[in-house]
């Protein structure tokens, strides 16, 4: 039995699939592919799958992956070939090989956020945030609500692209099992505290990192 990590991008129409939908998407694709996939051995056998780090509905990603098991040894090219045409529009396969890192080593994720609105207002909001002592938001988890300080947690906010009505900035957020910060928390904070009128905001997950900020890829 071989564990395979299927790496893919989630773009276009596929960003509207929730994590739960994505499980169905992948199970159907693996079934359709005819690959010798390993099934759980219970009363109700199903394809065994683990997603490395769940992604919010509506966010794009360059760095998604899911692990599953094969009963036979197969080359990367053969696996990708078998999966061709089995996935919905927007899911782009990148690779299929033995996992190169343990999912538990994920500690950070980099997101690009593009805001549509008045350039000056957005830049001003980012500057105010930069100058602020602290940025307290309420995070809702399964265990309840808790207050966290975004200033201590989000690193390296950098504006990467400026247009009249469109600003893109990048930043690194805690990610993974111990603490996961959704970039939406920062967006909500900026909107509420600095009165920017964001018409739209689009989010892309770019990379995953380990505790020393080495890219996991």
């Amino acid at each position: 039995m071989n564990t395979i990590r299927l790496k893919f991008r989630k773009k276009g129409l596929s960003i509207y699939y929730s994590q739960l939908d994505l499980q169905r998407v992948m199970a159907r694709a693996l079934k359709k592919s005819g690959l010798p996939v390993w099934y759980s051995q219970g009363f109700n056998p199903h394809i065994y799958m683990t997603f490395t780090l769940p992604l919010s509905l509506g966010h794009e990603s360059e760095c998604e992956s899911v692990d599953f098991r094969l009963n036979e040894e197969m080359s990367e090219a053969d696996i990708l070939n078998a999966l061709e045409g089995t996935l919905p529009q927007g899911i782009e396969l990148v690779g299929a090989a033995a996992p190169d890192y343990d999912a538990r080593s994920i500690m950070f994720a980099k997101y690009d956020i593009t805001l549509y609105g008045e350039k000056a207002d957005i830049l001003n909001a980012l500057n105010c945030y930069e100058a602020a002592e602290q940025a307290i938001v309420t995070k809702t988890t399964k265990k309840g609500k808790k207050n966290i300080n975004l200033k201590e947690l989000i690193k390296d906010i950098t504006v990467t692209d400026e247009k009249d009505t469109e600003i893109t900035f990048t930043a690194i957020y805690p990610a993974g099992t111990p603490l996961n910060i959704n970039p939406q928390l920062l967006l909500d904070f900026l909107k509420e505290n600095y009165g920017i009128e964001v018409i739209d905001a689009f989010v892309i997950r770019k990379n995953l990192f380990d505790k020393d900020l080495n890219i996991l890829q």
Partner: protein
Amino acid sequence: MIDNKLKSALLSIQKPARYTGGEPGCIIKDKKDTDIRFAFCFPDTYEVGMSHLGLKVIYDALNKQPNIWCERCFAPWTDMIEQMKEKNIPLFALESKDPLTAFDIVGFTLQYELSYTNVLLMLELAGIPFYAKDRDESWPLICAGGPCTCNAEPMADFFDFMFLGEGEFHTIDVCNKLNELKKAGKSKKEILVELSKIDGIYVPSLYQIEYNDDNTIKSVSSDVNAPIPCTKAIVRDFKNHPFPTDVAVPMIGAIHDRAMVEVLRGCVRGCRFCQAGFIYRPFRERDADLIDLGAKELCRCTGYEEVSLTSLSTSDHPQLEELLDKMMVWTEKEKVNIALPSLRVDNFSESLVEKVSKVRKSGLTFAPEAGTQRLRDIINKNVTEEEIEKTCKLAFKAGYSAVKLYFMMGLPGETMEDIKGIADTAKKVIEYYYSMPDRPKGRGAEVSISVACFVPKPFTPFQFVAQDTAEEFKAKQAYLLECCANNRRIKVSYHDSDTSFLEAVFARGDRKLSKVILDAYKKGSIFDGWFECFNYQNWLDAFAENGIDMAFYANRQRTFEEINPWDHINYGVTKDFLIREYEKSLEAMTSQPCNKQCYNCGANKLLGRACFEYNKA
């Protein structure tokens, strides 16, 4: 494809993937290469519409034509409606995201009466005028198909034409004819007159209806000699007719989220309350090899792990056991589960239950429909108490412990004794369970009884009868609960009589109701089939304001001589046959399944031959 306006709307709502398309199996064509664009509209949510096999059949049939592109469109849920109105996004089809106004034909499927307001909702969101008479050549042709078109007179003013019967062929014929007529620069009226000459195409505006003073119909005529009666279309060689094996698979789930194969069409039973049992006649089954190979291919293409053998009565397929044997050769290996959704109590054999339960055990559902033998004879549901006993025992022996029983109340000739019979039947089922030494251990029996309010429908022997009033239904429901009280093994659920009343009004309604539907829509009625959206008061007001008595349509016994709103439409079964069956019901006389004995219903004329080889048996 998805512009920023739509993207922004999608990020503000629940389940955005309802509106994005892009599922594996959906068809994208280049619009430059197609002559006719057809928008198949399902006036309910994506999850409901994507459960519908008819959509997949028509989508497949049309898209197999190189010059036609068929796309899908569903009713947006309330959150999306708000976004579309706020952001000025016209209703679009999922594949191209083009607005419905960019299509040549916009076709709605009418599956149930309570979806009528959603048709108006979708037209308005697309910016299309409601009434057919207000649309000139610049608008798409707006049409309807599905079971309700056997009497969609209440919606007649909104549609340019309707498809009667089975759509596999005439949807294609209409597209090709329209292409030809458009290229020849014909007017809308000329186009409609030409389309009315195609088998199964009904153009309401070509028929004039006159009324008597008592509001019944005086006459139906056509000034352009449109066919009277207008006859439905069928697939004559259903046995060898292929079915879709690669379909768009919803990635966000659907109500019925499994591969579906229609194994037979029509029904031999002739249950007198059942509209489907008459309007889908004649009975035709599909070839077992065709089903087996197609089902395998369907599962391969879609990745589904369950395949449902659907029909009105799957166990009436003459080759069912043989078919299951064939299918189990590959389903077990591929980990595919076979579901048989409509089994009959009277031919549920031991080997059949074994075959089904080999794959996965769940609850079992039967429909005795009525609680006493006398009433079952009246409705011609030829099921005996012994058969219910035999079947339940078989099922319990095979490891089932939960049984669901479907009943109706308000059936013609029903008394309180029959209501008590529903409770008695459920109690007996529980007794059967505990009388068996080899029952499943460690589990108690559970019987759920679900009781619907009977709605008399066109083209059934009960099309003449009055529906029970809300008061009668309430009294019967209360009595049933009383009869089941103190039995925790019986769970009772029943339908809301308000929606059944409305359904009865529209089922046998006429063209005067178009205005009422539009008025109720304008008062905010949409998604009437959804408990959380249904607003009965809107409807009561809309009827009152138009001076229309709902009881005239629902609670009135009709004479045989009365011209019904659907009498100029021909679904194969003749009115004479329906009268004969109704008269037999008054004597509690049953009829045999029609593969055993022909009662001359008339549907064989659609086939052009006898439906069965009677002398062989």
